[in-house]
């Protein structure tokens, strides 16, 4: 493996001597050392990750390889060697790929494969993909193996063989009709030996999907429907048991934008891929759930402000109904308003009555419920952005969030609600110097906290930068939370970071201090990030 890596380096240095060959190379190195905290117990943490991507372009062929040195990764096990590789041919709208790839069918109700290194999530396939794109028709055929590593127990791997295809037909410019089909065979690890392929549980999932898109008069309408049939086979002591379950999902959106500078988007989701009772729901790895390669839109806002992006709503793709509306409006050429509101809940609730589990339905079958039994979530957000010069701006926002998962068996609600006011200003000091300041104030309520269920957080960030060379950032956070309720045991955190650009494509960052941690989510995939105290270093390079 090391020989392959050094061979790549040699090739990269000598490639310009080969005619008709182009190449590209990028590298991302991360290193950190310090201590983390989990459940009040500190532990030493050191990670070293180096990801090198190289591609060779020869006429209509492309070859790519990723060499990974995670020893270890910040989350998950070590890896040393070739992690991804592929060969691709492309000509006249046809693209054939053998090796590693990610792909998207429609809006992801049937299949949405992607990678997010930041939260160590990867649903890349290893196999074959054929794509054809023309003005009227797009077709993708895909087949391959997926080894999905669990987000919580990273030693647990679910193995899938996926086969599927999708098409999108545009008979006229204003309309697109599409459909997909995914066939998946999954093998689940046994409880006793999570990393052994043989287990008593297999699942066969078949997911057909249809969709329609219309564009006219400034409006964009999209609607899709998917149905999932999951046949699970359990090999136990008493023999083989087979069960079939069905689920479905709907996603729709309506967007409008006009020349006067305003636009709105309305989104609706009704994901019922596995609506089950609380006894069954406890098993979050059950084979009938929305499977890891299904990743439709989350239909609520993902935030940039620090306190708003920590501990967001954790979507359940198996059982969630909700909607979102977002409006952008340019009041003037310098002032833009952004308003957002979203709500979601489970489809059903359950109650024990005389030893029997009774189902409770929502009053309105088309809308989420804000009654506590249905694990309601809602959020409202408003933001004003004012550019008082060509490059200096002020951004002020308001957010109110309420999230209350309900546990039917104990009749317990875990209510988390917050009111947040973030303000950011960026100011041109002249001579290439910029100063950025950010203040975020938050009132937080967490019903599970024993000592301080109500507390305040205050986040401050100052960045001084000089284009194009460097920037210096200082982030501090205060909290009135009782240290016994806080996983890190602290109520004050400070982190300083210096970034320097060696060239326009080579950047070094060094940081030191303490970070609070929390739940970080991206595209509906969430990871618990432990509090950290120490040093971080990274180098981003590209040729």
């Amino acid at each position, binding site marked *: 493996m090391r020989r392959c890596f050094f061979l790549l380096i040699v090739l990269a240095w000598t490639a310009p001597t080969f005619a008709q060959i182009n190449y590209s190379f990028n590298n991302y190195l991360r290193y950190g050392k310090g201590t983390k905290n989990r459940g009040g117990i500190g532990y030493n943490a050191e990670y070293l990750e180096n990801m090198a991507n190289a591609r060779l372009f020869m006429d209509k062929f492309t070859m790519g390889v990723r060499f990974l040195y995670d020893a270890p990764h910040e989350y998950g096990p070590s890896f040393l060697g070739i992690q991804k590789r592929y060969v691709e041919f492309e000509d006249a709208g046809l693209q054939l790929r053998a090796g590693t790839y990610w792909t998207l069918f429609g809006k992801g109700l049937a299949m949405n494969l992607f990678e997010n290194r930041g939260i160590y999530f990867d649903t890349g396939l290893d196999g074959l993909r054929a794509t054809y794109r023309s003005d009227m028709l797009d077709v993708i055929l895909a087949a391959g193996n997926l080894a999905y590593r669990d987000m919580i127990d990273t030693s647990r791997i679910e193995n899938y063989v996926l086969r599927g295809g999708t098409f999108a037909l545009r008979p006229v410019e204003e309309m697109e009709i599409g459909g997909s089909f995914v066939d998946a065979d999954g093998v689940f690890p046994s409880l006793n030996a999570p990393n052994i392929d043989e287990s008593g549980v297999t699942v066969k999932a078949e997911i057909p999907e249809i969709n329609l898109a219309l564009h006219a008069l400034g409006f964009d309408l999209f609607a899709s429907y998917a149905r999932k049939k999951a046949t699970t086979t359990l090999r136990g002591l008493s023999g083989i048991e087979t069960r079939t379950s069905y689920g479905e999902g709907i996603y729709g959106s309506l967007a409008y934008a006009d020349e006067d500078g305003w636009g709105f988007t309305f989104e609706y989701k009704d994901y019922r891929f596995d609506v089950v009772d609380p006894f069954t729901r406890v098993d979050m790895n059950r084979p009938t759930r929305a499977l890891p390669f299904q990743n439709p839109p989350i239909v609520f806002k993902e935030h940039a402000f620090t306190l708003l992006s920590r501990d967001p709503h954790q979507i359940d793709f198996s059982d969630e109904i909700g909607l979102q509306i977002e409006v952008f409006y340019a009041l003037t050429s310098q002032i833009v308003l952004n308003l957002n509101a979203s709500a979601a809940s489970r489809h059903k609730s359950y109650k024990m009555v005389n030893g029997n589990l009774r189902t409770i339905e929502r009053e309105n079958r088309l809308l989420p419920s804000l009654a506590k039994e249905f694990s309601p979530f809602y959020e409202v957000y408003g933001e004003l952005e004012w550019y008082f010069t060509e490059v200096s701006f002020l951004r002020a926002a308001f957010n109110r969030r309420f999230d209350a998962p309900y546990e039917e068996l104990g009749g317990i609600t875990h209510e988390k609600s917050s009111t947040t006011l973030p303000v950011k200003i960026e100011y041109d000091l002249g001579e290439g110097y910029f100063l950025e300041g950010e203040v975020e104030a938050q009132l937080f309520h967490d019903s599970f906290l024993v000592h301080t269920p109500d507390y305040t957080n205050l986040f401050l960030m100052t960045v001084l*930068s000089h284009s194009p060379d460097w920037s210096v950032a200082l982030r501090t956070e205060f909290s009135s939370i009782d240290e016994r309720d806080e996983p890190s045991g602290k109520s004050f955190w400070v982190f300083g970071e210096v970034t320097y650009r060696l060239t326009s494509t080579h950047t070094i960052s060094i940081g030191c201090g303490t970070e609070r941690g929390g739940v970080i989510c991206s595209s509906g995939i969430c990871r618990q990030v432990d509090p950290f105290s120490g040093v971080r270093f990274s180098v981003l390079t590209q040729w």
Partner: protein
Amino acid sequence: MRKRAVLFGLVVVLLGGTSMAQDLTSVQFKLKDVNGKTRSLQKIMKEVRGTEDTPRKGVVILSFWALWCQPCKKEMKAFKPIFLRLRKEGLNVEYIAINLDNIRSTAKVKSYITAQKYPYIQLLDPNQRVFEKLNGQSIPYTLVLKESGALINKHIGFIPGDEKHLEEEIRNYLSGDS
């Protein structure tokens, strides 16, 4: 000790390679714009460089961004008055903003860019296949191309004030200084 040695070695290799920038622009692609229309880079480049009888010098900027990327949005916003100024002066400049949002946000992209009134060509790359082809690693990622498709420079990240350096690169090329 071993890790420090690897770390040091990697840093030396990386810094040692700084002179090896390569041209990636033999890559052609077609992407849909926010109105659902398929646009081809080849056609856009052709419009920029003019005809064989009346060739023109020009610059095309390819910039990858996402709704969740604050520096990306800052870069697009900061460059807007510069872009309009260059166009007003009659300079042949085109800006292609390529959005990388996954399907979670593509419905909102159009309303966002309309409210901001960006004068750029807006394309969608939800699978990131073009981003990968052009050696994208992180965003914002900006390529500055000649009318022939050859690379003038590329940039990763955005520090406020970078837009002025971008303007300088464009003017230097168009005036024949580079």
